[in-house]
C-alpha cells in the first residue's frame, strides 16, 4: 500500500467516525431540564452542598421552604411539621458556635425506605427520597428510623394547599428537595433564597455531572456527611462542619 492511499483511508475513517458520533450523541450529556414526559433518570443524583462557614445568621431557607411548600407551625413544637430547620452547634470546651440547615439528607440507602411497610417511602431514580402519600398509612416507622429527624407527621386537617404540594392529615412528609421545581429545571426554594437573601451557602446540582459546580467542589474541596458512620451516602453534604 503506498503512503498516499494509506493517508486517504485514514482521513476517510476519521470522517466516518466523526459523522457517526456527531448527530444527537454526546459523550457527556449536557445538564438540562427533563421534558415532562421523560422519567427521572438514575444517571442523575441530585444533591446539595452547604458551606456552613457562609451560613449566615438568618433563616431565609426555612422561610422560603415554608412559603414554597405551604407548611407552617401551630405553636406546638412537638408536633408541628418541619421540613427544614436551623440547628445550632456549640463546642462546649471552646465555645465555638455554628449553625446549619438540617433537612432530609436524601440518602442512597435510606433507613426510612427500609422500614416502610407499604412501600410509600421510596427513593426516586434520581436520588430524591419521597413519601407516596397515597400509600402512606401514617405508621410513623420512618419518623423513628430517620437518624436526622427529618420527617414530620401531619396531625391537623389542612386547607389551602399549594397546587404543586398536596398535603393532608394522617400521613408523613419531609423535604422533597422541591421535586416539583427540580422537575421544571429549577433549584429548590431554600437554595434560591439562600443565594438571593442569605449567605450564598447552598449549591444544588447533579452529583454525577462532571460539569456541575457541586460535582467539581466535592471532588476538589473537603466536605462531610452528617453521621457518615451510618454509611447512608447522603445526597446533602456539608463543608466547614
Amino acid at each position, binding site marked *: 500500500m503506498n503512503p498516499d492511499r494509506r493517508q486517504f483511508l485514514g482521513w476517510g475513517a476519521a470522517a466516518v467516525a466523526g459523522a457517526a458520533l456527531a448527530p444527537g450523541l454526546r459523550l457527556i450529556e449536557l445538564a438540562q431540564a*427533563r421534558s*415532562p*414526559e*421523560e*422519567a*427521572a433518570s438514575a444517571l442523575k443524583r441530585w444533591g446539595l452542598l452547604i458551606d456552613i462557614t457562609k451560613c449566615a445568621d438568618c433563616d431565609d431557607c426555612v422561610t422560603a421552604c415554608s412559603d414554597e411548600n405551604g407548611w407552617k407551625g401551630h405553636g406546638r413544637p412537638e408536633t408541628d411539621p418541619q421540613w427544614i430547620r436551623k440547628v445550632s452547634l456549640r463546642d462546649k470546651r471552646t465555645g465555638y458556635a455554628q449553625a446549619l440547615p438540617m433537612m432530609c439528607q436524601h440518602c442512597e440507602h435510606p433507613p426510612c425506605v427500609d422500614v416502610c411497610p407499604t412501600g410509600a417511602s*421510596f427513593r*426516586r*431514580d*434520581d436520588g430524591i427520597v*419521597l413519601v*407516596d*402519600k*397515597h400509600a402512606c398509612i401514617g405508621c410513623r416507622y420512618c419518623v423513628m428510623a430517620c437518624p436526622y429527624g427529618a420527617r414530620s407527621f401531619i396531625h391537623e386537617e*389542612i386547607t*389551602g*394547599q*399549594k*397546587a*404543586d404540594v*398536596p*398535603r*393532608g*392529615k394522617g*400521613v408523613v412528609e419531609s423535604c422533597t428537595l422541591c*421535586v*416539583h421545581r427540580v*422537575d421544571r429545571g429549577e433549584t429548590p426554594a431554600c437554595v434560591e433564597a439562600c443565594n438571593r437573601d442569605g449567605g450564598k451557602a447552598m449549591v444544588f446540582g447533579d452529583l454525577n455531572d462532571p460539569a456541575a459546580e457541586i460535582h467539581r467542589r466535592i471532588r476538589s474541596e473537603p466536605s462531610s456527611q452528617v453521621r457518615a458512620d451510618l454509611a447512608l451516602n447522603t445526597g446533602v453534604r456539608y463543608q466547614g462542619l
Partner: protein
Amino acid sequence: MRFPAAVAVALLAAAGLVRAGDGGTGRVPVPSPKIEAPGQCVAPTAEMRRNHMKMLLHQRDLTVHEGIRTPRFSLKNCVNCHASHATGSVLGKDGFCSSCHAYAAVSIDCFECHSPMRQANVAAVKP
C-alpha cells in the same frame, strides 16, 4: 313465560331511568355540573365519565414515582379547566367534581390533600 316478564322488568327499569334522567321528576335530581369550557376535554365525554378515575390513578403513580408530569391527565390540569368561574373551585354544591360524586354516593379523597382551586395565571393545556 319468564322471558316476557324479564322484558317487562327491563322496560320498566328503562322507563324509570328515562324519568330520572329528565331531572325534575326522580327522587334525586340528576346533577348538571356546569362545563366551563365545553368540547375541550382531553377525551370524549362518554370516555371521561367512565374512565376518568383510571386516567387519574395511572397518571398519579407515574408522577409521584417517576416524575412524569405531562399535563394531559394531571389532576392540576383537570382542576384548572373545570373549576367554577364563580367560586374558583371544583368542590361545593354545584362544583364539577362534588356534584356528581354526591349524586353517585362516591366519596373522593383527592381534595383532602390536593388543592381544589384553580391556579391563577395558568392557562389550561388542551389535548
